[in-house]
């Protein structure tokens, strides 16, 4: 709906992001950009801080230093203010690893809730858009189903539709391949590619090397909260320069 402000800028720019939990440093000086149309894979072993980065971008974690610029809005360190929350609201869509679909609402109602109540669009308008999204994602027949009636793959696609319903320029996906079999991963990859080609910026946490090689336009490797390598996935994954990347490749190939 917004379509950008005419300047070709990054959809997401993270600079010098630091996050501590007590004395423990969870993220140290993380910086990277995601451009519109890019699919950036955030990779790393469990506990490397991938999900924390996503949650900080979504406004679910406060951080200690650095800045997160999402479109025109910038998140600063310290507690989230209500104004920064409403500024980022239309900018970021998030698909959680376990989807977190609203359990008491049908797929259709899950998708329409934010357009109707946050964006104040008409119910009819929101439903038309939701139907189109479900159709694109191949789950149009499940519109009336409740979350518990959906399979894992269906729930993921409904969750993607819900995140896209407010038309955010940036979409975050947390471990989307984790619960999918290889065939479904391919379908997901094409879906993501389609979304990116429409000009959306995608940031995906993942440790599936094959998936990243095939679908990501860039990969960022995290180890112990620090960015250790970044660049074209084929370059980075074929010629790893850091131990963490090698460890990641070793685990995936087993």
């Amino acid at each position: 709906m917004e379509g950008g402000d005419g300047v070709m800028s990054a959809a997401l720019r993270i600079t010098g992001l630091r996050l501590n939990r007590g004395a423990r440093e969870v993220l140290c000086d993380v910086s990277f950009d995601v451009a519109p149309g890019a699919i950036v894979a955030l990779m790393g072993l469990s506990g490397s801080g991938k999900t924390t980065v996503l949650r900080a971008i979504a406004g679910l974690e406060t951080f200690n230093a650095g800045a997160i610029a999402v479109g025109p809005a910038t998140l600063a360190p310290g507690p989230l203010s209500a104004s920064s929350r409403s500024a980022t609201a239309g900018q970021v869509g998030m698909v959680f690893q376990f989807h977190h679909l609203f359990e008491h609402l049908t797929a259709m109602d899950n998708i329409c809730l934010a357009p109707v109540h946050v964006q104040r669009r008409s119910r009819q308008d929101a439903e038309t858009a939701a139907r189109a999204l479900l159709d694109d994602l191949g789950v149009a027949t499940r519109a009336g189903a409740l979350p518990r009636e959906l399979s894992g793959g269906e729930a993921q696609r409904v969750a993607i539709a819900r995140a896209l319903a407010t038309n955010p320029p940036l979409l975050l996906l947390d471990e989307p391949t984790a619960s999918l079999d290889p065939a479904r991963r391919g379908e997901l990859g094409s879906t993501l590619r389609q979304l990116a080609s429409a000009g959306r910026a995608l940031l995906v946490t993942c440790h599936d090397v094959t998936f990243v090689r095939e679908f990501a336009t860039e990969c960022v490797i995290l180890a112990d909260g620090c960015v250790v390598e970044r660049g074209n996935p084929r370059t980075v994954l074929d010629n790893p320069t850091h131990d963490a990347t090698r460890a990641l490749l070793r685990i995936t190939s087993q």
Partner: protein
Amino acid sequence: MVRFGASVAVVLLLATGLRAQDARVLRWGGDAEGGAPFVEADPKQPDRVVGFDVEIAALIARDLGREPQFVQILFTSLDQSAARGDFDIGLSGIEDTPARRRTLAATIPYYEFHEVLTVRSADRDRLKTLADLGGRRVATLGGTIAYELLLAAERDHGITAVSYDDDVHPYGDLLNGRVDAVLLDHVLAERTMRRLTGLYTHHNPVAIGHYIGVLAPENTGLRDRIDAVLRAAMRDGRLEAIFRKWNVWSDDEAAFFLHVLAGADVQATDVPGSTPQSSWEMTRRYLPSFLTAAAVTLVLSCASMALAIAVGVLLAVGRVYGRRWLRGAIILYVEVVRGTPVLLQLFIIYYGFAEIVRLPAFVAALVGLGLNYAAYESEIYRSALEAVPRGQLEAARVLGFSDSQTLRLIRGPQAFRLALAPMTNDFVAMLKDSSLVSVLTVMELTKQTQIFATNLGSWVIPGALCAALYLAMSLPLSQLARRLESRWKAATAS
């Protein structure tokens, strides 16, 4: 329910441990709560009872060659306890009624009392008889001859009969204007006149009644021996001495004794039109008041529950979202309300606050039950709100919902599903707890049952009717809740 439970416990205790009768002991039942001059705890030694009924029991025991032993029984349970044989004889200012004569072995009357009308001193010249009290509220103890007289006056003179559970608060409410007159035994009226100023008791009796002792129906042998003791004590002046000591002797009493000793027949006090012959006819006559009482119970429970839900939701939201001082205040409220008896809270709201705000009985009952249940509801809703998974709230936050939208659209609806079963439970409990409000003069189903049972002399029909009406109210409610739950469950099963 609480009082009911307590009396059941007492009865059970008696039935198991103490039923065995010792021929050298005269077990006599009375209610020390009835107070002086009948039976009351000795102010100097509260584990002993004193009063004219206590001395009459001692006199009977002595003449029978036994030791008197007091058994505390709730006044309203005396008849049933006597019928069961929980004690040998009940003596506690028990009125001589046709129902008691029919269902129990009753002694000869041993005291004659007058039902007298007490009004505020300012009204003494205007309000002299029940006929003068048309359109006004007249109080008495529920389930007594006086209450039947007031019900008759409701039909004949258009007064409003107000039933109390005790004989002290009617006079207090007369003074503060909640009622305009009190009809009770002159013994009680005189006791009150000594204690309170600003009241006037008309000496012309509205009706005459008698006190009797009651025994199990099969215990006529003992009854006859007790009758002989009572006659002897009337003849030799020992009864007179007791009544004089307690300041309840008069010339009327002397005449009454002579009447009894002459072998004349003393009629049980029968309020015209109040005691038809068959229990079927009686049931038919009581049915309208039963249905009215059931409606009071239902309306009161629904209104109180609505208040409890509304206040409970506010408390729960304050507890989950509020600042620290607000959370502290709510915790304090919940703990105080849950930790003290609801009966006490009802008393405080109705009688304690009467100086500041004189709430009508129904409103006081509604507010009392509603605020009490609100404490329990708020805990249910709080835990239900906290049980909604964090992920649901985070998803809502990323989508841009405000806290209040999240509560209204996501967290609230999900919590409601979790809270439904315990809420239904509380609603059913409320239907039955609402019986407590009879202490605030609200004539609800349990009180109506008790009055019917007293006048019929049996609990079988009133009890069955009462149970049927409570079930008719609670079953549809449970059914509705079950249907809602299964709909949600069916929707969430794959």
